[in-house]
């Protein structure tokens, strides 16, 4: 039978299996290959909080979705065209998402009575033909095939069995016409010290590729052509990695030493891991005894002249709250990164949510204004981390950066930035000019920004004391004076409000006035942008604004809001930005609020906008 090739504009595939089946790795390899191939892409890893939930259980299913396209895309897609299910539990959890008429590829060797029972199947869905009314199902004995392929390697059968994910990868490479060589090169480096593992995985991958090529079951393969991306040098980048690069870039540009004080927490730990591996850049990372020590050590480093960072997720921010108040009153530069996850409490550690916005804005005692900046795509994490550092140093203030689990672990092709294109970060430590009558004045402010001077310990003649007690402006002496306290509260608020003078004019995608303005922040950007595009193509009068800064808000936002009959605010929370917008602008905005631990779909946003248009 001859094979036909069909050209597609885009495809969505999902790898799903047991936590121990290597689905994240398989997805990662498919992503890297697809990125280098030149497609635009977006990924969504989805894994359980348990490191190894019982094998075969529904709780232990781990999945990785990638959408890739020959066009510019913004989301990892909703319904997969192809689902790879390595066991019955994976099939059970993910089958319902597959696009009608889509393809399901199963590893039949894992469809044992025990696994079927664990997944809650009364009969084997691969045998009772229930799936075949809706999907094209391929049942393949992956375990058995890799065992045969590796027969002469004298490896334990368990190790051989574990290569079955590379069989699946090889098969998908064949279906979508991607090269296997980059993964072979990668394996050779990854398992350099275990050549037998390189060989076994290569054989498994080749077996999968050849299975597609030679068996007569697969009759069609697909091509997704290169995307037409702007000219430049590209790489694929994961959010947390891009964020780490942004911090390192800020350190290099400011010529400050980077100090990270952190305590491990999902989904932020990868930033700690990444920066810890960059000691050759002089970066200092400190894994503290707890979240509070993470932020307070960073604050100590800030006092001492470092570019100080602390990274965490929502529960960690709750613990750091008091120290953030200290950072605000002592007016030290500090970048606080919250990679948001599902809450409250421990919540859904590995799932995404946007429910810490109000915590970021208000979660401290006293009048404690916190600048809040948010990232909107994995690659954007680089620029936002950089900007957070720049503003923190320029205004002598903590800055909170909000990202989320979806951005942190998701990836996209990314045009590699040039450091020379980034705004400068100028640091001028205090010197004699901050003295009055030979006395150093730690709160003698810069007129335009209201930033106080930053005096490096070790500098002769600038000895001074700061702290959490209210200080007299200019002198920095402890002060309980009522007038001074009012003045200082006002000054700290003004200083943060001044940051909006740094912003460019707010960008509006689509119509500049009309029926609906979609207003969003953070990781919903892709879905909102796709929804707005479709709505406009359908002839709707829709505009879309994505906020980067939530505190302060852009100066021109108020005049934009009143140009639309409706304002729709989609958020992965129960309505947080909407509270801010309603109270700041007295606008009757409508929310689209979902907390399913996953991104909001473009389709839901479209539906909601259409409802508002009527």
């Amino acid at each position, binding site marked *: 039978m001859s094979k036909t090739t069909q050209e597609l504009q885009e495809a969505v595939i999902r790898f799903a299996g047991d936590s121990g089946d290597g689905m994240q790795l398989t997805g990662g390899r498919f992503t*890297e290959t697809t*990125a*280098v191939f*030149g497609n635009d892409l977006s990924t969504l890893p989805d894994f359980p909080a348990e490191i190894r939930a019982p094998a075969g259980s529904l709780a232990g299913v781990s999945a990785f979705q990638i959408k890739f396209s020959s066009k510019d895309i913004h989301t990892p897609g909703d319904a997969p065209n192809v689902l790879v299910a390595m066991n019955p539990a994976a099939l059970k959890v993910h089958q319902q998402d597959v696009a009608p008429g889509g393809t399901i590829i199963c590893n039949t060797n894992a469809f044992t009575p025990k696994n079927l029972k664990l997944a809650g199947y009364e009969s084997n869905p691969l045998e009772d033909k229930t799936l075949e009314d809706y999907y094209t199902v391929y049942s393949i004995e992956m375990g058995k095939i890799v065992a045969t392929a590796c027969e002469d390697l004298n490896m334990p059968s368990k190790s051989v069995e574990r290569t079955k994910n590379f069989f699946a990868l090889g098969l998908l490479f064949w279906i979508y016409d991607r090269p296997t060589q*980059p993964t072979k090169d990668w394996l050779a480096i990854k398992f350099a010290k275990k050549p037998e593992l390189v060989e076994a995985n290569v054989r498994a991958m080749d077996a999968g590729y050849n299975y597609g090529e030679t068996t007569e079951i697969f009759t069609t393969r697909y091509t997704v052509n290169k995307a037409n991306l*702007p*000219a430049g*040098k*590209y*790489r*694929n980048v994961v959010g947390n990695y891009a964020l780490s*690069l942004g911090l*390192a*870039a800020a*350190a*290099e540009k400011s010529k400050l*030493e980077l*100090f990270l*004080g952190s305590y491990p927490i999902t989904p932020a730990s990868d930033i700690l891991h990444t920066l810890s591996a960059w*000691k*050759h*850049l*002089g970066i*200092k990372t*400190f894994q*503290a*005894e707890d979240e*509070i*020590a993470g932020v*307070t*050590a960073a*604050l*100590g*480093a*800030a*006092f*001492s*002249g*470092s570019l*100080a960072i602390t990274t965490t997720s929502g529960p960690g921010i709750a613990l750091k709250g*008091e*120290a953030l108040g*200290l950072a605000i009153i*002592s007016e030290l530069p500090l970048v606080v990164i919250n990679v948001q996850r599902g809450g409250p409490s421990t919540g859904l550690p590995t799932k995404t949510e946007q429910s810490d916005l109000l915590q970021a804005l208000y979660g401290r005692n006293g009048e404690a204004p916190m600048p809040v900046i948010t990232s909107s795509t994995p690659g954007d994490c680089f620029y936002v981390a950089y900007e957070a550092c720049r503003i923190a140093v320029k205004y002598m203030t903590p800055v909170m950066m909000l990202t989320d689990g979806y951005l942190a672990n998701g990836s996209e092709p990314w045009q*590699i*930035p040039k*450091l020379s294109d980034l705004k400068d970060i100028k640091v001028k430590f205090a010197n004699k000019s901050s003295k009055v009558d030979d006395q150093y004045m730690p709160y003698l402010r810069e007129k335009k920004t209201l930033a106080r001077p930053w005096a490096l*310990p*070790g*500098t*002769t*003649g600038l*000895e*001074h*004391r*700061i*702290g*959490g007690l209210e200080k007299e402006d200019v002198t920095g*002496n*402890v002060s309980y004076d009522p007038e001074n306290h009012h003045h200082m509260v006002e000054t700290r608020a003004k200083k943060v409000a001044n940051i909006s003078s740094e912003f460019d004019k707010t960008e509006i995608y689509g119509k500049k006035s009309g029926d609906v303005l979609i207003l969003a922040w953070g990781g919903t950007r892709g879905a909102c942008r796709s929804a707005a595009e479709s709505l406009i193509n359908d002839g709707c009068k829709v505009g879309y604004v994505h906020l980067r800064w939530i505190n302060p808000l852009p100066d021109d936002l108020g005049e934009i809001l009143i140009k639309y009959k409706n304002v729709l605010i989609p958020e992965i929370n129960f309505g947080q930005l909407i509270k801010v917008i309603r109270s700041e602008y007295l606008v009757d905005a409508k929310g689209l609020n979902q907390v399913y631990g996953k991104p909001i779909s473009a389709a839901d946003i479209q539906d909601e906008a259409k409802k508002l248009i009527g």
Partner: protein
Amino acid sequence: MPESKTQVTYTRKDFTSDQAVRWCPGCGDYAILAQTQKIFPDLGRKKEEFVFISGIGCSSRFPYYMDTYGFHTIHGRAAAVASGVKIARPDLSVWVVTGDGDGLSIGGNHTIHLMRRNLDMNVMLFNNRIYGLTKGQYSPTSEVGKVTKSTPMGSLDIPFNPLSLALGAGSTFVARTIDKETKHLQEMIKESYAHRGTSFLEIYQNCNIFNDGAFAPLTDRDTKSDTVLWLEDGKPLTFGAEKPKGIRLDGNKPEVVELGDKWGEDDLLVHDKTDYVIASLLANMTYLPEFPDPIGVFYSIQSPTYEDMLTEQIGHAIKNKPKASVKDLLNSGDTWTVK
């Protein structure tokens, strides 16, 4: 990093800030501040290289009164803030001023982790066995049965022994002094400074408002000879005015013996500040009524500091990848060019 020797001769005044001291009249903190300001010129280091970090409590107002760099932080977190200062800037001389509530209760976690890391810094823990700033509740070092506003029928929890805790947490320098013993206090500050690694100095400090006389038996002229065991490295452990006494080991158990016909100095335990077991025995005596309270350096050993090892790791990493830059990282991994 070697400290820079000062060319300037300082006096006590150079370490005195222009801020009015606001402790209660008669507080033991005055004596500690005075002795610190007196002895600091003798340390021979530029004053801009000193940083005092404190948490919250009466003792934590200390940095405001020292004319050095200082940071009065939040309750319990001084050790963690100070760790950040020291890691970022190993060239600074970092001092943590804390109390029994700040350092052992709300900040206990940071205290123990500071000691196991052995950052080269100095902890002065003012122990008055009471909460002063919040007006008189019992503290983690108050004796069992302490009657306070929050424990009208007596406290129930067993007190911490700060020095046993320090030893258990891996401290490389453990010492104790008393606010009223001014010369000894100065001496202990000097020794803390001289030690490379985390120095843990407990200072018995009288709170004359809420726990007056807590250490009176150790400071009263009439009693102190029998209640204080002055520790001197390499010397037998003796005390007692009229009847000289000493500490000897009966097997593994220390006991108090009178010197005379039966026991002589040769039978006594000789203090060795590098011996962890002796330090532990001595620390344990604090709450045992039959023993005197040891004062002085309990333990002092040399061990690599966290910041030295970190500096070495970074140096090693830079040596292996010289001239590395963020540009290299940006361009690492699989890249491709779109024309």
